[in-house]
């Protein structure tokens, strides 16, 4: 592995660890009307499930809550998450979830984007559908 990527992965791992330590709760919510099963959340974020019925699912990462999410939901570290998506994007031509800075950015995106899904460190406001709470 290249040193540049090692550093990037290490930083991401650190941030995740720190965030997880800080966050007590984690909420996963989607655009209003998207009734995603909690069991499909992992597949959606690893690019395995891209559609719910006719709705294209658009997951986004919340940089602030990502360490907790990777730990609680995907059960993997940031490096694994990154390499998985690197392979996935090369092999299947699928882009990894866009990275949003915080809950507000994620909430704004989900509200605007049909099929949009994201996770929050705090309970999101109205206008989205909470899928699960971790």
């Amino acid at each position: 592995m290249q040193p540049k990527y090692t550093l990037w992965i290490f930083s991401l791992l650190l941030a995740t660890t720190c965030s997880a330590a800080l966050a007590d709760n984690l909420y996963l919510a989607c655009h209003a009307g998207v009734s995603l099963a909690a069991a499909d959340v992992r597949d959606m974020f690893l690019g395995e499930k891209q559609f719910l019925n006719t709705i294209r699912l658009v997951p986004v990462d919340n940089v602030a809550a990502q360490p907790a999410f990777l730990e609680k939901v995907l059960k993997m570290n940031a490096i694994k998450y990154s390499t998985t998506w690197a392979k996935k994007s090369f092999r299947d031509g699928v882009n990894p979830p866009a990275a949003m800075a915080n809950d507000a950015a994620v909430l704004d995106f989900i509200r605007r984007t049909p099929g949009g899904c994201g996770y929050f460190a705090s309970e999101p406001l109205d206008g989205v559908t909470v899928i699960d709470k971790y």
Partner: protein
Amino acid sequence: MKRTTDKLVALQFLAVVLPIAVVLLVQMAADARRAAGLEHSRPLRLLAYEARANYKTFTNGAADAVDTGTLGAQSVEALHTTAARLAELAARGETAVVGDAAVVVRSLTATLSKGATLNDLMPMRARIIEGDKLTKAVDDEFERQDEFVVKDAIASAILQKRAVSGALVITAILTVVFVLATRRRIKARLEADIAKERERRAELETISIRFGVATRAARAGVYELKRDGLDLWWSDTMHELYAQSPQEFRPTMASWLALIHPDDREAAQSAITGAMREQSQLRSQYRVVRPDGSVCHIASLAAVAMDSVDAGPRLVGIDLDITDRVEAEERERKLQQQLRDASRQAGMAEIATNVLHNIGNVLNSVNISASLVTDRVKKPRAAGLGKAVALLQQHAADLGAFVTTDERGKHLPAYLAQLTEHLMLDQRVALEELESLRKSIDHIKEIVAMQQSYSKLVGVPERLAIAALIDDALRMNIGAFTRHGVGVKCDFEEVPEIVVEKHKVLQILINLLRNAKYACETSGRMDKQVVVRVANHAQGVQISIADNGIGIKPEHMTRMFTHGFTTKKDGHGFGLHSGALAARDLGGALRVDSAGPGFGATFTLELPLKSPETVYG
């Protein structure tokens, strides 16, 4: 019927062939169109597929590079292959489809090379993903196009299959329809043929029965002779005709000839062999001696039939029992001979009657003339002359004084003169009667000669004046007319002389005058009169003798000239009959007119200017 069936079969053939031919042509055109479409789309799809597959090899290699850290040579080569395939697609005119993909892939090939690291790849991830989408889109597009062509081909094939099925169904329906129609017609024809055959057989049977009945009734036998007389067939009636049992008698040429009368056998055999040899009709007659000894007369009629060259000629004929006919002919011959004899005798009697009648007529005149002459001779004129001569002898000495002084002597010269006058009158009358007598005798002689000439059918026509002939006839009858107070009036036109047999005409006229005198005499009227007229006629002259006598009943008019018919008490019915025959012989005619009883009658004799020569040979 056969022609209709042939037409139906032809139509049936067309009904089967035409739909199939049309469908085959359409199928061939569709196949060609599908083949052309597939030939175009399939290579493009293969190129797109290869481009896509190689790109996926490349992306898999890129994914593997996440673990290995470097991009493998195979992946790079796959990327170049992708670029090459896309370039080839673009070269085939598919730039619109492959343009963006080709650009992206070409840019990747320019950046990435063998041994490229993950650090080289990651910055290119977006472009790689874009290339993945674009190459997939290219592959999908050509797959879609190819599928469209394939689906079109499949749809066309299905349509074609339906068309074939439809054509086959139509063909089957038409076949069934035509088969049913043909079958019905053939069935009808067969039924008609069978019915006709039955009728023909029934008719044949009827004909056979009729033929059998007819031949049996006609006592006719049928035979057929084949193979130059070696093979002979007889019908049952033939056996009956020859009185031979069909079970015992086997007809052969030899056995047949053995049944024929020996005197006729050779002629019969000759007739048969001749007909067979010359293939001509056979007509022969012979006698057959039956087992009981009776003789049967057979008439054989046959003809040669030639069915085929191989079979040879056949003599098919019929034998008729003509015994009755032959015997009848024999009886008829004898009867005719008897009739001829009787006719000859009757003719002789008729001739004798005719002669006697005509001579009788003339003999009347002869008797009258002879009576007149006798009367004249019997008159005492010679006695007076003798007395005068005696007186003169007594007074021979004083003859002068006696004549001048004696009272008787003075009357003697006047007496002698008167006596001389009477004697001369007697002489003249006697001479006239003698002349009439001579003519009558001459006529009798002619009658006899004429009757003799009848037998020879010759006569002596001569040119004569009708008026003179009528005068002769009147003179021969004048005595009778005078005695019975019948006046005679003549009314003669100027007519030419005619050439005719004199005594035949004279005979007719005498007969007619005598009949007229009789009719007047029988009527009892005072003004008895006969008018004799001579006039020109279209083809000659006509002589009519009209009387005002008793006339003729209408019902007798048609019988007047019939032999034996007469209204006279002592008549024979011969005169008018012979007169009519004589007139016909002369080329003329004799007819009668009468207004009825009490109104007299008119007999008219028409004569040509010249009698037919044929009558006189």
